[in-house]
C-alpha cells in the first residue's frame, strides 16, 4: 500500500460491543472515536435488569 495509514479507528455504535471494541483498541495504542446516535452510550444492555446465567446486574 502506498498511502499512509492513520493510527485511529472510528467505532460506530456505543452498545456493549462498540464500547468494548473501543476499549480494546484504546488500550492497545490506537486513538478511538466512538460514535453514537443517541444521547448516551450503553445500548440495549444498559436497559436490561439482570443477565443470565449468573443473574448479575446488567449495569
Amino acid at each position: 500500500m502506498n498511502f499512509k495509514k492513520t493510527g485511529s479507528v472510528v467505532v460506530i455504535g456505543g452498545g456493549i460491543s462498540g464500547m468494548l471494541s473501543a476499549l480494546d483498541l484504546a488500550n492497545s495504542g490506537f486513538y478511538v472515536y466512538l460514535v453514537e446516535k443517541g444521547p448516551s452510550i450503553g445500548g440495549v444492555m444498559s436497559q436490561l435488569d439482570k443477565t443470565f446465567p449468573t443473574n448479575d446486574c446488567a449495569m
Partner: protein
Amino acid sequence: MEYPQAVPLKYGINPEVCLKLTKDKCGTCEEVCPANAIDYTQTQETITLDAGAIIFSPGFKPFDPSKFDNYQYVNYPNVITSMEFERILSASGPTMGHVTTFPKLPAKPKKKKDKLLAKKRKSPKRIAWFQCVGSRDMNKCDNPYCSSVCCMYAVKEAVIAKEHAGGDLDCSIFFMDMRTPGKEFEKYYQNAKDKHGINFIRSKVHSVTEDLDTHDLQIRYVDELGQIVTEVYDMIVLSVGLEITPETKELADKLGIEMTANGFCKTDSFEPVATSRDGIYVSGVFNNPKDIPESVLDASAAASAAGDALSEVRDTMTKQVATIPETNVVGERPNIGVFICDCGSNIKGVVDCAHVTEYAKSLPYVTFADENMYACSQDAQDKMVEQIKEKKLNRIVLAACTPKTHEPLFQETLKNAGLNKYLFEMTNIRNHNSWVHKNNPELATQKAKDLVRMAVAKAALAEPLKEEKIDVNASVMVVGGGLAGLTAAKSLATQGYDTHIIEKKDQLGGEALKLFKTAQGEDVGEKVAELIGAIEANEKITVHTDTTLEKVEGFVGNFKSLLKTGDKTCELEHGVAVLATGAKSSEPTEYGFGQDDRIITALGLDKRLKENDTQLDAINSAVFIQCVGSRETDRPYCSRVCCTHSVDNAILLKTRKPSMDVFILYRDIRTYGERELLYKEARELGVIFIRYEVDKKPVVVIEKDKIKISLNDHVLNQPVTLETDLLTLAAAIVPRKDEKLANFFKVPLNDEGFFIEKHAKLGPAEFATAGVFVAGAGHYPKPVNEAITQGRAAASRAATLLSKKDNLFTSGTIANVNVEKCSTCGVCISICPYSAPRFITEGRFEGKADINAVLCKGCGLCVASCRSGALHLRGFDTNQIFSQIFALGEVV
C-alpha cells in the same frame, strides 16, 4: 436524559417538542439553569474524522409486535413486550421493580380513563411468555431467522419474576424449540423447570382475547396431544426478536458493505468480523443475532482485526492521560467516608439501607455516610469524588456488590479524588447478604450493619500502598494448534509479537481437519490449509509440533515454560499465554455404536463426504439421532454444534440424492441465528424431523439388511419404525479436561472439564489469572466461526497487555518482611508457590528473607507460616484482620 446511569449524564433538548425551538416560545430552561448551559443556537454540525479503520456495531431494535393482530399488543394493556418486562423488573424502571398488571400506564395517571384502569392494578398470579414473536416467522413478518437470545431471556425473566413475587406466581413459557445452547444455559433452563417450577409448554398460541371488565387475557392453543386448551392469564409477555433497522441497512449501504437477505452483515466463517469492504469490521448483533458474551467476543475480535491492519501505526495518535497527584495521608487521623449502595432493589429490596447509612455514621472515625441508588453510576461517582475532596475523607468504605467486578471502578474514583487506591474497603452486602437472606430482611439489615462495621474497622488501619512496575516480555505462547489457537497466533504475530504455537500432535489444524463444510458451505479443509500456510510463512511464528508442556513458572509478563519435543526439552520465556486446547467428539455408548459399520458419528459422515464416498449414493434411507450423550444427567450441557451439523449434512445427502429418505430425530432443533435458514431449507427439501423425549429414546435394532429404529412420532402420537442404511449419531463434544495444564496456569475447570473464563458475560476470552487467555472449544463447544472469533478476541485481549510494555504494575497487596523479626528459618521460601521470597545474599541483612514484589501474588501463605511474625501482607495485615474479627464480635 434516558435513565439514571446514562453516560454521559447530561440533559439534552429534544428539538421536536421544545417550544423554544419549534415555536420560539417559553425559554424557561435557559432562565433557570444556574450553569448557563442552555444554548438554543446549537445546530447540527458535520465533523470529518480521519481514521485507519472502522468498526461497525450498530446493534438492533427489538421487534415491534404492533402489527400482530392476534396478540393485540396495541389494544390490550396487559400484553407487553419482553423489553418492557425487563424494565418492569428493574428497580430503576417505571414500577420500581414491582411486577404489576397495567404496567404501561403512567405511575400516577392523569387521564380519567387511565385512573380507572389503574384502580384495577394487581400483582399478577399468572404470566405467560410467547416465544418467537418476530423470529422464525414468515407468515406474520418476514424474519425467518432465529433471534438466538429470546429463549434464555424469557427463562431468566420468568425466574426473576418468580423471585420478585415470592413463589406465589405461575409462569408459563410457550415455545416451539427451547434453544439454550450457550455455556451453562441448559442447566439454567433445567433449573427453571425443576427448581423454580416454571411451566414449559410446546405450542404456538393461536390467539388472545381480553375480558372487557378485568382485562384478564384468555388464550387458546393446541397442546402436544392435539387438544385445544383455553387458559386465562393476568399478563402476557411477547418474547420479541432482534431486528436490524432500516437506518442501519441504509448506513451499511453507504459504507458499501454486503448484507444477507435479512439485513445482517455478510461475513465469512474464517474471517467472521470482516465485512466485504477492506478496513471495515463488524461486531455485535448486526453480525448475526447473538447474546452478550458473543457480542463481547465480536467486539474484541473486531478490535484485533483493526489492530492487525494498523499495527505499524500503533501509538502514533494516542495522548497521555493526565494523572492526579496523590494526597499524602500517612500520619493523618482516619477520616472514613461510608457509601451504601441500594443496587436498585437488589440490596434495598431486602436491606433497610437508610438505616444502615445512619448506623454507619455512628461508627468510629466515620465522618460521612451516604446512600446511593446505584453507586456505580457516573453521577454517583462524580459526587463521591466531590465528597471525598470536600470532607477531606482519607479512607473509603463501600457496601455494595462484588469487588470482583466493581472494585477497580471505585479504586479509579479514589484516584480521581487524589487518594491512594488502597485506602478503600469494599464489603459485599448483595451476594453475601441481600441475595441469600431474601426471606429475612430484618436479619439481613443486621448483617449489613455487621459487615459495614467490620469494613470500617479494617479501613481505619488501611495504609497507602505502592505498586511495582512489571516488565512485559512481548512474546506469546499459544497452547493448541487448532483453529482458535492458529487464529490467535496469526493475529498476534501480525501485530509484531513473537509467537510460539505448542501442538501435541504432529500437525496443525486440530479437529477442524475432520470437518467437511461450515454452515455457510465453505470447505473447511481448504481454508485450514490456507491458514496453516499463512502461519508457516510468518517469520514471527515458531511452531512446536509433537510438543508437550512440562512446567510453567512465573506470572503475567514473565512466564517461563518448559517444552518437551521427543527427548529434547527447551525453555520458553513469554509474556502471555493463550490456552486453545479444544475439545473432541465423544464415543457414543448407545444406539449400537461400534457394533455395525452403518452406525457412525457426525465426524464419521464428514469423513465419507470429504472422501466423496460413492457408497453414499447407494443409500436409500439415512437417519440422524441428535443429543447423543448431551443434555443428559451425567452430561447436562448442550453441545451447541450438532443440530446445525446434522441439518447441514442432511441437506448435503438430500441434494446428493433427492430420492433418499432422510430423518432427523431430535429433542429441540437449535439452529440459532441465521442457521435457522438451513433448518427451513432442510424441511423444504423433504428432510423429516421427528421429536423424541429423553425418557423415550429411539430404540435401534441391527438387522442384516437394515437397521431398524423405533420411536414415538410426536405428531401422530403413535409408534413408528424407520428402516435405514446409515445411522449418524450427533455425539456430544467433550473437553480435554486437562487438569495439568489448568494447574500450570492456576485456571479453573468447570464440572464437565471446560475452562472457566474470567466473567461469563464480560470476560469470555480471558482467565482470572492475569496474562492467560482462552479460546476455542476448550471453553465450550462451538462452530468454526465462533472458534475463530474467540481466537481473535483472545489475541486482542492479549495485545492490550503486550502493547503496554511500560505501564503494567503489580498489585499493592503483597507480602513484606520485617527483617528485625526474621529468624532466617526459610519456611516462607519453601512454602511459596510463586517463588517470591528469597534470602538476602549480602549487606547488613544478609540471610534474612526478602519478597520479590513482582512474583508475590498476595496469597498470604508465607504470612501464616512465619513463626516469628516477621511477614505481613500489605492491605490484609494481621492487625486489620483482627480488628475486623473483633468488630464482628462487638455487641451492638
